[in-house]
């Protein structure tokens, strides 16, 4: 049987908090008239619900993949989660033969898995057609960027003071034009600017920074032929050209290390949830950003648990500062020790060096040995007396203060131009706490 998950791992799969609660309420063997498990990793059960016939729930742990006969649109539904919780608690009967309804789904899945494995996802079928499409896209993006450049210059001619009176539509219109121009990265960035004029003191400074960096991107795209290939990749990925995972894996050299899982942050972006997981290699010292995506209501990948250390092969996306990577093979995962913390001077030097390669970089991994302070603004201060403010969007950060009690601790998070976003802390005993 597959390695047993713990409760936290099951609950992390829940699409939202109400699902977690509903699943815990259902995780009683009394609600289930039949449960069972089979090698190598299948679970099934029948759960009484509001319908006349019980709901039939099957889980394939290897995916993991789920199926339930209930009408819920949440995925996984509470029945799946409850069944997993029962299994976690040891309440699912020993290996047995699955009933027909479960067996048919499991066999179909296994067949499909072996079927699809060799085929490259998204492999172009007609190379000529693909090349023509790529050419068309480049032309569209070039036109779009020229339009963006004119729009940005218009903003500067009229002055930023006018944009504070504009509604969200002001940015949505130009963002929509960038969607048409097949530059989704720019569209997303422009949409996020709508909130800047209402983000408090210094908004005009922040808006000017963003406009300036957008024009820099437009100019850089125009002149990409003169730029070194890694920087070209950075520019293209920021505009919204995405690489196929298969190409990344084919072109990249796997890097094996013991990757410490430092921190994780989930952000909602246009009906998609993005999980940003930061890692650092114990041997190479390399920082890594692993992204995973989920549509609303679906659960995010949680195979990288904060505070653990994974022995894995990673393949990096190309770029001027290669941070983003794919997990190629995970060999092993162990509970990790707290990571070694840097000083604030060290963090700032590292960020400056990275900016020299990628001027658009606005989230940089931070691991600091520091003490939280509250005055003049919430901040982290290190032993040398240097301090950095916390990000205003991170809230009051009370759990971080409570954990520290005014004493130094190791904090991991994201350093951004607006401040440090604390995500993980290790207490005096070395226990990891997600903030």
């Amino acid at each position, binding site marked *: 049987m597959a390695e047993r998950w713990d*409760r936290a791992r099951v609950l992390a799969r829940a699409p939202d*908090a109400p699902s977690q*609660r509903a699943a*815990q*309420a259902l995780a*009683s063997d*009394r*609600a289930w*008239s039949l449960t069972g498990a089979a090698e190598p990793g299948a679970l099934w059960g029948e759960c009484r619900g509001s319908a006349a016939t019980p709901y039939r729930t099957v889980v394939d742990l290897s995916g993991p993949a789920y199926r339930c006969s209930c009408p819920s649109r949440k995925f996984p539904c509470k029945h799946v989660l409850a069944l997993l919780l029962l299994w976690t608690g040891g309440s699912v009967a020993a290996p047995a033969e699955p009933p027909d309804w479960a067996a048919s789904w499991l066999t179909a899945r296994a067949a499909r898995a072996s079927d699809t494995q060799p085929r490259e996802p998204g492999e172009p079928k007609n190379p000529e057609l693909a090349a023509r499409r790529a050419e068309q896209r480049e032309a569209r993006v070039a036109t779009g960027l020229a339009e963006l*450049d004119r729009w*940005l*210059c*218009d*903003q*500067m*001619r009229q*002055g*930023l*003071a*006018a944009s504070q009176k504009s509604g969200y539509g002001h940015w949505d219109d130009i963002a929509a034009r960038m969607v048409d121009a097949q530059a989704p990265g720019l569209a997303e960035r422009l949409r996020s600017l709508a909130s800047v004029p209402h983000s408090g003191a210094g908004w*005009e*400074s922040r808006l*000017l*920074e963003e*406009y*300036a*960096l957008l*024009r*820099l991107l437009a*100019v850089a795209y125009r002149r990409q032929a003169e730029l070194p290939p890694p920087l070209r990749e950075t520019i293209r990925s920021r505009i919204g050209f995405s690489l196929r995972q298969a190409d990344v894996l084919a072109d990249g050299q796997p890097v094996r290390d013991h990757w410490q899982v430092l921190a994780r942050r989930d952000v909602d972006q246009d009906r998609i949830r993005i999980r940003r997981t930061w890692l650092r290699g114990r041997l190479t010292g390399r920082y890594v950003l692993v992204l995973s995506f989920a549509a609303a209501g679906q659960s995010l990948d949680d195979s990288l648990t904060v505070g653990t250390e994974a022995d894995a092969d990673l393949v990096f996306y190309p770029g001027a500062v290669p941070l983003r990577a794919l997990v190629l093979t995970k060999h092993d995962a162990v509970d990790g020790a707290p990571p070694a913390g840097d000083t604030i*001077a060290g963090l*700032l030097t590292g*960020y*400056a060096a990275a*900016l020299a390669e990628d001027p658009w970089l606005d989230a940089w991994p931070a691991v600091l040995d520091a*003490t*939280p*302070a*509250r005055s*003049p*603004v919430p*901040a982290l*201060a290190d032993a040398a*007396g240097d*301090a*950095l*403010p916390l990000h205003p969007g991170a809230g009051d950060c*009370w*759990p*971080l*203060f*409570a*954990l520290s*009690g*005014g*004493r130094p601790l190791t904090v991991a998070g994201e350093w951004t*131009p607006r401040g440090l976003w604390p995500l993980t802390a290790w*207490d005096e005993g070395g226990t990891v*706490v997600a*903030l």
Partner: protein
Amino acid sequence: MSTWQDLVTAGLIGTERTAVPPAAIPALPTLADAPEDPAAVLLDRAALLTVARRAGRPPEQAEPLPAAEPDPEPAVSPAAGRRLARMLAGEHPDLLTEWLTAAVTRGLRVPAQLLPTLLDRARRVSPADPELRRLAARAGGSRARWLAGLNPDWRFVTAHTVAGNEAWRLGEAGQRRGYLAALRATDPGAARELIAASWDAAGPERVMFLSVLTDNLSLADEPLLEAALDDRAEDVRGWAAYLLASLPGSALGQRMADCARRCLRLERHTQGPRLLVSPPAQPDAAMRRDGITRGPAPGRSQLENRAHILLEVVARTPLSTWTGDFQMTPTQIVAVPSGGWAPVLFAAWSRAAMAQPDSGWMAALIAEALTGRPPGTTAETAALRQLARRADPALGAPGALPDPEPGAPPALYDAIRVLRFRHDMLKELDHDHSAG
């Protein structure tokens, strides 16, 4: 950096109305402006300065906080901490008091990172019910006091420690109750005398006085409580009757037992025993004094009135009355058929079992609901809900209770879930204790 501010100012006004200021970075050659459009020049200079400012940002200064006193008490285990986090996130929040009480009695601390959420929860509860605040402050230890010094919202953590009779003479309601409760815990007699001496002058505070007496209740409190039965305020009379009913050997308990025996008789037939139930339709003056009113709804039927009186009388009757009179165990008694009165008796015995408190009766009632007649009325469901929260948590151990019949009502599954949750929760805390 004045150059940057100049650029921002120009950006605000717009290049139609103002000139683009120069952007100079020390040690860097001046930027050659390629485009002639002033707006583009402004953006290019701003881009250069943006990246330069981000890369060259100097660290700031911050005022260090005083360090919290070290806490001699250990924190609860990671498993117990995770459960507390789940409870604070909404799973069985009503068991929070029990978790905290168990942690405090075992000398264990709440994990520091959970204190802000716990203190916020305690702050939101009504100040008239200070138990959660007191427990949160105790279980939070020195770290909670340190946090209270940083956030005025949590001042109640330190407010409770206002010592001496200053708090009693000059304090607000919460501090007065705190003082009295502390005195009651250490010297029950002194607290009673203080209450007796302050009774006449106290108006609305009398209810608070009586609530403090719940702790360390003894027969020495009976005269004070008997006098309170004649109080003008209804909630004072109600509290007094409730306390006397839960006091073993009280005269009120005896009066209730006499009354209950007239309502309830055991008949033994060849087919087995049966309970004959015949409660009166109206409470007499003596019953009314003991807190049994006709109830709030004047339009109720005879049958409803009789059920109400049966419930109130049996709920206040010492449970030893039944085991003694019938010479049967609680398990046998709750299984005796009583026709249509059974739901009323279940609710009444449940209230008695929780007030007196009697774990044997609570276990018998839960087992009866599981294996005998399942709860049907709202009152029974509510009683079972409370029993699951008050009964011995050992009932939640695997295999301690029989499984309910297939198709049993959800209230039974709920009760089992709550008992299991409590059992696991206390086991996690005990595990810590033995581990040191």
